[in-house]
């Protein structure tokens, strides 16, 4: 009996030693990326022998989890998803480490588009290479526009639709009694999408030069114009519905309840199974203003408190620098590429010249030519949260001037930590 027990103990101990010898890294990602990334993570495991534990979180929970783990300087995280504008914040607070040494044998310019590299970097060092990119377009319901007698917005640069034209048409479409509205933003009250409004009106990103102040940059004429526009579409002309969250907007458009939907390229596949008769056009701009669209997306970084940085960096490079992953992301998930090979793929494959594939082509064009990088500041987390809340307050009837002034003073106060 003793011998049997001793043998079992030996086997148990040996199996433990074998198990612990196998490298294991923890990878924090957004729920939306689990399906597309899992096959490549499995391929990585097979190729390297490194085991990867994927932990998924919805958008807001992912950011909160990263903050909590960062605050605790936890070493049980190795690789994280990084929202592009948070690169400076994570870098300054030592939550992610520089990646340049892991790409020393190659040229990052040959792999990634310049906007992706810019978003991935802070103070001249690359911290989190891009996984994908994003672009914003105008989707419209052909039937509702025809019924209202509106001209369809164009895909041609010289005929790009203006916000003023969008509002005019949306007023004709809106039929509140039947739950039909003329217009809606995809990412309601989110800075990512709405930044295009003040930028187009000449107000800039909201963050002042140097990234450590917002004084005068969130209350300038451009931001006031954008705030008033956002107020009016929800409270004066009522072309946009209140009380609808970002997760519901594409569904409303898919149900034929919205005339014009300004949203991301990732929406394209969402209406494939519906009877929706829709078209796509370039992103709107204010008449006489700048043409600007939202851009950048998710990056991947190595957790600075990880004990397995080399293995973690291998995974980051495998997922971001691989053309296969980038092309798969485009083909299967309508995600805009940040990788040069995938950008070339979109440009050369004929299917992207026809509807609905042309959405990828148009979004790539918008992102490459009119990308408004979000405000670069180590205090982006606070900045974005307060700006998002302010847009929501304006949407719910708050006076744009006082809401933006409040937001400016609040953000300025929180920025003192970085000065």
């Amino acid at each position: 009996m003793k011998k049997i027990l001793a043998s079992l103990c030996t086997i148990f101990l040996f199996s433990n030693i074998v198990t612990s010898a196998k490298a294991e890294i923890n990878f924090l990602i957004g729920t939306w990326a689990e399906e597309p990334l899992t096959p490549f993570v499995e391929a990585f495991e097979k190729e390297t022998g490194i085991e990867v534990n994927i932990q998924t979180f919805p958008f807001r929970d992912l950011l909160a989890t990263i903050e909590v783990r960062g605050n605790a300087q936890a070493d049980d995280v190795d690789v994280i998803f990084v929202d592009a504008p948070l690169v400076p914040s994570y870098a300054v607070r030592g939550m992610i480490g520089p990646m340049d040494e892991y790409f020393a044998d190659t040229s990052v310019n040959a792999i990634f588009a310049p906007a992706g590299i810019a978003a991935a970097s802070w103070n001249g060092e690359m911290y989190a290479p891009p996984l994908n990119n994003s672009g914003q377009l105008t989707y419209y319901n052909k039937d509702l526009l025809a019924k209202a007698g509106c001209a369809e917005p164009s895909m041609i640069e010289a005929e790009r639709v203006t916000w003023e034209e969008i509002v005019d048409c949306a007023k004709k479409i809106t039929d509140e009694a039947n739950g039909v509205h003329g217009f809606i933003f995809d990412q309601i009250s989110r800075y990512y999408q709405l930044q295009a409004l003040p930028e187009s009106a000449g107000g800039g990103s909201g963050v002042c030069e140097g990234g450590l102040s917002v004084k005068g940059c969130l209350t300038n004429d451009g931001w006031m114009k954008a705030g008033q526009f956002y107020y009016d579409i929800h409270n004066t002309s009522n072309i946009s519905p209140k009380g609808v969250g970002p997760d519901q907007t594409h569904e409303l458009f898919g149900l034929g309840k919205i005339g014009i939907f300004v949203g991301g390229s990732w929406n394209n596949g969402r209406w494939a199974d519906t009877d929706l008769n829709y078209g796509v056009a370039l992103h709107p701009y204010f008449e006489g203003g700048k043409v600007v669209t939202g851009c950048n997306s998710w990056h991947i970084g190595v957790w600075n408190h990880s004990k397995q940085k080399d293995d973690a960096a291998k995974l980051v490079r495998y997922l971001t620098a691989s053309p296969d992953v980038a092309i798969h992301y485009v083909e299967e998930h309508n995600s805009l590429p940040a990788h040069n090979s995938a950008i070339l793929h979109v440009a050369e494959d004929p299917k992207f010249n026809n509807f609905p594939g042309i959405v990828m082509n148009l979004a790539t064009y918008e992102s490459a030519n009119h990308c408004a990088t979000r405000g670069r500041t180590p205090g982006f987390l606070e900045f974005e949260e307060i700006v998002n809340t302010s847009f929501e307050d304006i949407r719910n009837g708050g006076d744009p001037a006082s809401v933006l002034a409040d937001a400016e003073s609040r953000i300025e106060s929180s920025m003192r930590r970085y000065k």
Partner: protein
Amino acid sequence: MVPYLFLAPALIGTIAFKLYPIFIGFWESLIYTSFSGGAEKRIFVWFENYQYLFDDKIFWKSLEITAFLTIIINPLQIAMSLGLALLLMRKSKFIRIIRSLYLLPIGIALPIATIIWGLMLDPNQGLINGLIGVFGIPPQPFLVSENQALWCIIAIATWKGVAFWMLFLLAGLEDIPKQYYEAAEIDGATPFQKFRYVTIPQLKRTILFVFVADTAANFVLMVPMIILTKGGPLQSTNVLIYEGYRSGFYYQDWGRSLSIITILTVITLIVIGLQLLFLSEKNEGIKVK
């Protein structure tokens, strides 16, 4: 010595899980974390975080909303709980079924109840607007209105809380000897007099417990704010606990966050102290014993 040994596990638990976190929270509220120059620095700043807070109008607005919520929600919940408990004391062959129905909200977790209420209060497709529409009332904005959002949260929290607090009051009512009511009836007391001079004095201890516990619970009420309103619209639901949570977990400004939480703890202790002072036994109206 023996009594202290018996008390020790509870005392150790209270110190480790109540007093120590409060002390740590207070200590950390005196620390300012700076990322100036790209490196994290923790600086002991005495009461500077509090000073910033007192100059911050968001904090004062938040304090005002917390005070308003406390003044409204606690008496409302207790009055409704007591009313419900009195109703459920009545004799009926269906009383067990009715009691079970009233207790249903206790079985539903607050986050789930909040989500369900959020769907019902949706200004565009919500059930409530559909129902009030039957009576010719126009659709209401509810959670997206600066004037209605806090009332909606009061309604949700009351729907969830009333049954729970009612249980204690029901137990207290069951505990009142029947002879007191019989004696009052012989003396010709009206139902209101029986309630005023028998029920209330006999229930005073239970009411005091419910009042204190309910107040403490409502000071930390923030699930509906997290799920439904994010403190808006226009900060109309931004209570202190949520502002503290947001400062810490969203902005990582732990000095500010813990200053808010410390102030909230002090306010809670003062309010509860006042409740104990004014509602304790020595202030009881009459003793029927």
